[in-house]
């Protein structure tokens, strides 16, 4: 897109808008093992994230809530990624995401794991929006750690 809003294309890549409009895994999870809420009151983002964990792998994930396009798409991308992953793998992915958004290098292997999620990297040009992109990831990381330590 050109015009005054052309610069926003880095932020709102097609894949981001797609996840924003049709977020994945929005069905609540019954008898969830990990169940938590994250919110960023300053922008008005709120998500309820639930996981079913079997043999230390995420068997099922459900994310409901509301937020801006970035936080919503990011949560949806997270839901897609974590299914089937062990908590160590999730932890590693969260670490790659954090570095990606900070503008640090990530390895090709990490990029492979992230797949579509790399589209979030455009947020780097809009530093105030980095929080939106990280919201659900940071929450998930903390919640999984808490679950592991019981």
């Amino acid at each position, binding site marked *: 897109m050109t015009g005054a*809003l052309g610069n926003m294309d880095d932020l709102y890549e097609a894949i981001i808008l797609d996840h924003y409009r049709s977020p994945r895994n929005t069905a609540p999870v019954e008898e969830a093992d990990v169940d938590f809420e994250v919110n960023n009151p300053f922008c008005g983002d709120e998500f309820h994230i639930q996981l079913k964990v079997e043999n230390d792998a995420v068997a099922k994930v459900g994310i409901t809530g509301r937020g801006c396009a970035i936080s919503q798409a990011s949560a949806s991308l997270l839901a897609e990624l974590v299914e089937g992953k062990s908590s160590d793998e999730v932890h590693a992915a969260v670490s790659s995401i954090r570095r990606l958004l900070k503008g640090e290098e990530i390895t090709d292997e990490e990029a492979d794991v992230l797949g579509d999620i790399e589209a979030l990297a455009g947020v780097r040009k809009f530093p105030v929006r980095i929080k939106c992109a990280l919201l659900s990831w940071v929450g998930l990381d903390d919640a999984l750690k808490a679950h592991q330590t019981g």
Partner: protein
Amino acid sequence: MSNPEFGSRVFDVDAIRADFPILQRKINGNDLVYLDNAATTQKPNQVIKSLVDYYEQTNANVHRGVHTLSIEATDGYELARTKVAKFINAPRPEEVIWTRNTSESLNLVAATWAEANVGEGDNIVITAMEHHSNIVPWQQLADKKGAELRYLPHNEEGLIELDSATGVIDYRTKIVAVTHMSNVLGTINPVAKLAERAHSVGAVILVDAAQSVPHMPVDVQALDADFLCFSAHKMLGPTGIGVLWGKYDLLEAMPPYMFGGDMILEVTYEDATWNDLPYKFEAGTPNIADAIATGAAVDYLTELGMDNVWQHEQELTDYAMEQILSLGSVRVLGPQNPALRGGVISFIHDTIHPHDLGTALDQQGIAIRTGHHCAMPLVRSFDVVAAARVSFYIYNTKSEVDAFVSGLCETEGYFSR
């Protein structure tokens, strides 16, 4: 000095705009359209120059020297107090206390007057549309004292109906603390009538005037307020300085808020006696430069005339409401009738989240506020977690409203591609 209501200068927006250097800035390649005035306003040359002049020509400490600079600094500092007193029609300049901002003024009253006068079983009444700064100090105090914090409700349109005060304000009410104009809904509250109610049960009334003093004529005597709080930065003045006005007898009877230099008359190794008003509440070296610059801001507004300021904002609000509502894609919070509200319009778009809208408008040079506006319970009561807000001031124009509306349409186009 002229009457602050009427002014001595023609209200010419082009001439006003020429006084504000920041309006020349480009934001992301576009002319700045600044519509976040409820958060803080821009500063005219007259205020900026006052700060520079003070530091270049006058700087010295106040109330403690016999040398020329100290005398000039003291005179400037006290003259600014007098200007503020006149601006709000305070009977005595000693009733004007310099603080850091509205929040500090509110905390001061909670920590001194209310600390001494609110007891177990008493109640404190506020509205359901307060800024966090006029909620949290009262929650803390009520908790500490075993007092009850009560809320005056508003109707769906965001208006307080006086009938609802019956049964909320009662003989155990010690203080009614209300916003004069809501920073979210724009609602102007019936402060004078609430003052009557408060006084009829022996309570005092505190007015959070952060959004009213900058935008309309405010007369503390006509309102029969007991305390009134506002911030200079929302009325062309610098950040870091605000005002607490209070009735003389109330202030006189209150214990000090902070202790230190300037606020004492006499100190022995064992004890101290408090200085007279207003110094009892101004411990330590005050914010001299910013107080003097606040005087310059008051001069600027006085020259324009607060009736004209109000009139200008009413016209813009009227125009903007019509434009925004005609889009059909947004819901405006608060009264739809512009006569019942000030120049603050909060709204929710059907599909675009406020945060995305804020970023998209910023790309077009348009500054708006997004989020909870420091009024989380209120915003949540509309079943949303965030809203977008435009708010106007003396330098805004109808063509800026047009730019905002077309920016909004552009954003709708972007997100529906």
